[in-house]
């Protein structure tokens, strides 16, 4: 009898946790995809919660401080790490993506302060929705400059 109480209590907690996990996962799931994958989805991707990653194309960065509207293009980079490694590491992959005019690109808009790390060939990860206009509306913007962390060989201009 004594044991039973504890077992029932444990099962109740377990059920509650499972419920919390399942319902919260459903409520906040974001589909992570590369830009090529997003393009392949076509119309069906519109309005879904998405998380996309790509390389920032520096020339396209535009910022209007009056409205805090930021727009820029990102170019497709492969999502698979093995592919990235095979192509010479993240920094090289980002560089290649930006200089290649045939890479698929997508325009991003974001409202807010311009992030300090936003610059050419930075890796950007955006959370948001694809609009019917084909522009990706980011609610959240994460940036990383791989050269700061990777073993980038220094320029040979030095002494």
């Amino acid at each position, binding site marked *: 009898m004594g044991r039973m109480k504890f077992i029932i209590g444990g099962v109740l907690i377990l059920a509650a946790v499972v419920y919390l996990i399942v319902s919260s996962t459903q*409520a906040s799931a*974001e589909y992570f995809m590369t830009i090529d994958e997003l393009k392949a989805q076509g119309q069906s991707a519109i309005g879904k919660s998405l998380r996309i990653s790509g390389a920032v194309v520096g020339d396209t960065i535009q910022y209007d401080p009056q409205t805090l509207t930021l727009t820029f293009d990102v170019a497709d980079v492969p999502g698979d790490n093995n592919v990235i490694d095979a192509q010479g590491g993240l920094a090289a992959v980002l560089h290649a993506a930006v200089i290649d005019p045939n890479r698929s690109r997508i325009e991003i808009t974001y409202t807010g302060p311009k992030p*300090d790390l936003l610059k050419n060939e930075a890796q950007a990860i955006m959370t948001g929705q694809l609009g019917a206009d084909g522009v990706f509306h980011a609610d959240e913007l994460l940036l990383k400059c791989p050269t700061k962390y990777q073993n980038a060989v*220094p320029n040979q201009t030095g002494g």
Partner: protein
Amino acid sequence: MLAEIGYGIIVVAFIVALYSVGAAIYGERTKSPAVVESARRAMLLLWPLISLAAGTLIYLLITNHFEVSFVYEVTSREMPTYLKITAWWGGQAGSLVFWSWLMSAFASLVTLRKWERDREFLPWVIVVTALTTAFFLGLVVFYENPFARYWQTAGGQIVTSMFAPAATATVYFPSDGNGLNPLLRHPGMIIHPPMLYLGFVSFVIPYAFAIAALITGRTDDRWIRITRRWTLIAWLFLSFGLVLGSRWAYDVLGWGGFWGWDPVEIAALMPWLTGTAFLHSVMIQEKRGLLKQWNMILIILTYSLVIFGTFLTRTGVLSSVHAFAQSSIGPVFFVFIGFTFITSIALLIYRWPDLRGETEMKSLLSREALFLLNNLLFMSVLVICFWGVVFPIISQIFTGQTVTVGPPFYDRATAPLFAALMFLMGIAPLSTWKRSTVGTIGRVLWKSALAALVITVILFFTYTHNIIALVGFYLIALVLLVTLYEFWRAAWARSKATKENVVAALWNLFGRDRRRYGGYVIHISMMLMAIGILGINAFQIQTQGTLALNNSLTLGNYSIKYESIAQFTAADNRQVTRAVVNVYDKNGNYLGQLYPRIDYYPDAQQNMTIPGERPTLQDDLYVLLVDWQPASANGATFKIFVNPLVNWLWIGSLIFFVGIIIAAWPDRDPEYASARSRARHAEQPSAAD
């Protein structure tokens, strides 16, 4: 030359660590104390050795030896010397040396203790700590070497290598380094990693004793008693690491918040969750001889999560599963975690029957049952965090589509559990061991529950109608009142019994049972922190606007007026653009000035947006300079946040520190204590004159 010496010392230290492991096992198996002693001495040699290697690395860092690739990556000529020293842990390779250095220091400290009747634990404690140190040193030796240099081959190519890649290659000297990431050049970021690492490393000690207890079969609570203080210290450092990291995010990242459920943050939070559960559940084993198996599981999990956390925080993982295996050391980490975890669990299964509880838990409301519930809740939060981190991988495997979960997932899933934990914090101190009923708890609870309700009703009419916030405030008020009531009850009882005044009685109470009352102080601090977390999450408001000079922007009870802007170069060559804004309250009274600024670091070609903050107990005004027009210098864009109550988070963390000091304060030698109290009694008549 220095680079070779540094690397050579690391290699020697690695071999010494492996020797220490081997000798400890061999000495224990063959029952030869001399060999165990040799293992112990080898272990004691590790710290001086690694210190020497670290000294070499620091020397290379401060003297601009950019031919060493680690030095090139994390420093530049412009950086002040103190930053060059702290750059030691600013990159992966250096921080692995740093980890080993701390680990060896702690392992040495613990091997230097008086072992006496615990001598049987010694060899196994050496094995675990030396093996862990060896693992990190091995990573440095084979994978992430901070002493590797740049070499120019005959073909003109630059390669990174420890030794000359070809006979004709020469060492290549870059003229200047990359510079530490500006984000990391902040006092919070300088002390945050060491704090976190200290927490991580000190959790290895209780784990080492737990493994020693499992192997030797001495499965009573001795290992817990020996390591109680280590656990508290580990918890202290880990907590402080988390708070400092949050503060850094708040001051530097410029998004008006302090916690974003980033995988790196979660990596540091997970061992904290198991550690907190462990801290509570060991008390049940000490008092009631229950939950022995559970405690073992908790400490094994904590150790694995510490290693996992080091991996996640060190390999530069961003919020992306795609970045997970970006470092070559990833697979090695997983092999080590897998090996230690499986070995530990196998040992635990082997000793499982010896770890049965001495009695049974009977009442659902007994203190031990409530502690168990607390543990289950912490574990549930852990499961949610873990699920969030691995869900992308799981979804990838099962559906081929990577699905991630963001902050809303964590907020939603953990909030009810945190609320339940708070409720437990309110009622558990009122419960008694073995048996409590709704009646016994209710009799002491109802006054506090009622008072908390009154406070909540007042808040409803004066502060907020937000239901979730009100529930939160009710729980906070309940815990605070119950805890204060407990203090009052105990102090009152003591003052009646001893004829001391209530203040003296309260003071002496802490001396009597430091652990309990230190724990209550920690509960109070947690509630103050909860006020801050609730405040910023429920009531944060923000606005933005572009202002011409002398124009104002209003938000909540504040309005800011744009006074001026100036650009100058700071001593460390940072280019600063600093705005001056005046702050007024809603009646137009002048409150002060803020200086939001943008720092540009030429070496790293990066901006840093530093907010101007005006902290009060009520809220925090947080002003960011977003942009300005350089030509006319009369238009600047600001983003403003008002973060209600957030400063209670920082106040709470200071009180938390006090609570831990109380709980971890060493007990006086019992004989000395009684001699002193006799002496005090003898003095009392004269003091009364």
